């Protein structure tokens, strides 16, 4: 029997990026908040010691900071015709665990999506006609870029993002991204200093008439004190960044931006190493009464609360909804139901240029230090004569020269022996890589549900991921690969290799932890799980925050919009819900 604990105003499931933001906002509003986090306590001083943080084997290869599949795995298949099998090890994506969540070991590319992304269906049908979207389940978000602008701004100033504005109040700025939506003010910090590869990349792109700009980065270009009064330091380009915690207080994460203030509040409490098993519904099934969770010793507890916030990362938010009976599960055969609908990912490809006689020094790097070209991203370019919608950012962001995982050699090189040694020595310092990160648009057949066979250690069904790259996205990605070839040829290197995305998403090689959809926001309860305030249509005292809200994914990393949605939901709760608890939008 679960032991019942004293009631709280708010229970937050997961103390990562979004959980920390919401906890801060709602405690500021005077509420009594408890966050339940299944991983351990973590912060810079305790866990990211500068003396042994640079350990590729421990953190990047054995994945010490990540969620371990023994704790929670999921199953995958490419289509409903296949039998899903467990990802016995995480590879394609690497969910986080512990205080700070995946934001502990992220890279720090911090984007706003394009204004057109938020009204994608309206925008694309208006520009290209409805048939263009056939086979795709594209939708509007129900919230506009303009409505989110101040939330983006707050997240960027919380983090101390280093970048150059490309569009200030509608005026295009030299050196920034001319395709971005208008922002009200500059980034809090100037761009990072560029290493050699991105500098070459920008020259090559510019020579082709493109518009490279410094990637907006949560690796700080200088010292910074954020609006909460928390000080951060300059990034040292250590090259042990993504997959690692930052020992320099230079990468924005919950630890370096919020927790030092949040943890001192008397109306906040964090319970770590406690896993939420279920959101409990009241007898009428129309409100949540709290959550049940288990601690490290397997004791179970019931935490009653007036408000339940799901901040467990996109995939786990969806699983918890399915396990708790919140919202109707999506059925790909009928197209009905909403929870699990519009699961999307990211459609990527890479390019390499092999030189001779260079010192690229790939080890001087940071998670988000680089240059981006958005000329072929989103709807920045005319798709009129093309056979796809969507696009990709092209990024030259060398993140590391860590040699267990980074040893580029031209195709055809043997994998071992003397010839392998020769090529490895020759190309380690002589290779420039860049890549495309493409949009992922929803189709009827890509979705999330519960697995019928495989169970977790509590005997509950694992989440099942059914996903393959849609044909539209493959056409998009291959077209962008052709554009990457044009850029790569401009370097005058010795050899150029450009990859092409193919069907058959594999769970093995790392691609990106940018899993989106599954509990999407929208204006119609038939096609969305939460309304424009991220409030469950069915259980209005449950809010679901994360990239699971994205109706489809853009050719950009998700956390900028995720952070903005956290502020947006906090405002909805503070300014609307608390005044009049109940449905904020009538269906």
């Amino acid at each position: 029997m679960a032991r019942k604990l004293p009631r709280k105003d708010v229970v937050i499931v997961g103390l990562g990026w979004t959980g920390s933001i919401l906890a801060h906002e709602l405690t500021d509003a005077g509420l009594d908040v408890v966050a339940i986090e299944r991983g351990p306590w973590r912060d810079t001083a305790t866990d990211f010691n500068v003396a042994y943080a640079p350990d590729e084997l421990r953190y990047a290869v054995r994945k010490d900071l990540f969620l371990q599949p023994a704790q929670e795995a999921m199953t995958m298949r490419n289509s409903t015709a296949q039998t899903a099998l467990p990802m016995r090890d995480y590879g394609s994506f690497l969910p986080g665990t512990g205080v700070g969540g995946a934001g502990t070991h992220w890279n720090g590319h911090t984007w706003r999506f394009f204004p057109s992304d938020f009204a994608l269906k309206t925008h694309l049908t208006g520009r290209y006609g409805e048939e263009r979207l056939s086979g795709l389940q594209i939708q509007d978000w129900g919230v506009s870029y303009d409505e989110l602008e101040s939330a983006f701004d707050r997240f960027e100033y919380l983090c101390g993002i280093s970048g150059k504005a490309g569009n200030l109040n509608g005026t295009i700025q030299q050196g920034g991204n001319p395709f971005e939506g208008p922002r009200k003010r500059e980034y809090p910090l100037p761009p990072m200093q560029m290493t050699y590869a991105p500098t070459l990349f920008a020259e090559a792109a510019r020579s082709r008439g493109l518009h490279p700009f410094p990637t907006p980065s949560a690796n700080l270009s200088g010292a910074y004190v954020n609006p909460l009064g928390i000080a951060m330091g300059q990034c040292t380009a250590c090259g042990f960044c993504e997959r690692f915690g930052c020992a320099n207080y230079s990468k924005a994460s919950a630890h370096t931006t919020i927790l030092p203030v949040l943890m001192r509040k008397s109306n906040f409490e964090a319970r770590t190493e406690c896993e939420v098993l279920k959101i409990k519904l009241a007898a009428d099934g129309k409100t949540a009464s709290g959550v049940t969770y288990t601690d490290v010793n397997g004791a179970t507890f019931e935490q009653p609360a007036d408000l339940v916030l799901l901040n467990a990362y996109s995939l786990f938010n969806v699983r918890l909804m399915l396990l708790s009976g919140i919202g109707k599960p999506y059925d790909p055969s009928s197209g009905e139901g909403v929870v699990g609908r519009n699961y999307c990912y990211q459609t990527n490809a890479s390019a390499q240029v092999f030189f001779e006689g260079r010192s690229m020094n790939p080890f001087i790097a940071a998670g988000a230090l680089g240059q981006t070209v958005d000329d072929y991203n989103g709807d920045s370019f005319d798709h009129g004569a093309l056979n796809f919608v969507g696009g990709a950012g092209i990024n030259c962001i060398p993140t590391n020269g860590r040699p267990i995982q980074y040893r580029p050699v031209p195709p055809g090189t043997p994998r071992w022996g003397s010839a392998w040694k020769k090529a490895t020595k020759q190309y380690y310092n002589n290779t420039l890589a860049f890549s495309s990160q493409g949009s992922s648009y929803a189709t009827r057949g890509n979705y999330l549900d519960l697995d019928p066979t495989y169970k977790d250690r509590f005997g509950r069904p694992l989440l099942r991921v059914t996903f393959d790259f849609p044909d539209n996205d493959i056409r998009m990605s291959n077209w962008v690969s052709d554009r990457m070839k044009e850029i790569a040829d401009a370097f005058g290197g010795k050899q150029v290799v450009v990859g092409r995305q193919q069907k058959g998403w594999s769970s093995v090689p790392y691609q990106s932890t940018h899993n989106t959809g599954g509990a999407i926001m929208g204006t119609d309860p038939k096609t969305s799980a939460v309304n424009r305030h991220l409030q469950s249509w069915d259980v209005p005292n449950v809010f679901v925050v994360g990239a699971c809200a994205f109706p489809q994914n853009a050719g950009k990393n998700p956390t900028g919009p995720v952070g903005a949605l956290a502020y947006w939901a906090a405002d909805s709760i503070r300014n609307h819900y608390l005044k009049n608890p109940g449905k904020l939008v009538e269906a």
Partner: protein
Amino acid sequence: MPPATSFTRRRFLSSTGLLVLIASVPGARAAEHSGTLPWKPFAALPPDPLPGGRWYVLTPDEARTVEAIVDRLIPADELSIGGREAGCASFIDRQLAGSYGSSERLYMQGPFTAGLPTQGYQGAETPTGRYRDGLAALNKHTRATLGGKAFFELAAAEQDQVLKDFEAGKVDYKPAAGFFNLVLQNTMEGFFADPIYGGNKDMAGWKFIGFPGARYDYRDYITAHNKPFPLPPLSIAGRPEWKTGDK
């Protein structure tokens, strides 16, 4: 299945070192943090590599076989020492002795079914089991086809050919290619991981390609474009010349 937290010993220790708590909820056991940053001096957990000088998992024959393999995968030549001298076999042995070797952190519940390549490794075998099996198969294969000799008794050229056959799955052992890939992956880990884990002797793997190792501040060199990086590599344990006395 081990109990929920045994595979996170490191984390478990770190959290019990914090406030193990709970005033408000008698009987509840978890780390509960409120009103303060739960930080204690020296709470951070250093890596815990195993001491060298012995074999933990591999038998003497298995160890000799692994040493012979890693020396063909990374042969000694004018570019660097070979895999054996660099300690790759001892690195592998020590990895097998830890949570890696027993797949402790992985999802190991059945049913086990052969999957598609997109679904990753689906076997029930742990890395330790795969080594045990694969090394036996390797020596069985060479004894049967190459004059009764164990792998480590063969000439280098013969060893290379046997390894190529395993890599291509052209032997009478079904998991040959998977086993080869496992050994290749672990050998590269041993050659390029921080020397504290028993391989990469004297940072030979890092010197070989020019990786400066566990340095954490490159600010003075970010804009030194196309210039060779001037400093020698550094391990988590420092540089050999910093040490006094025995290792």
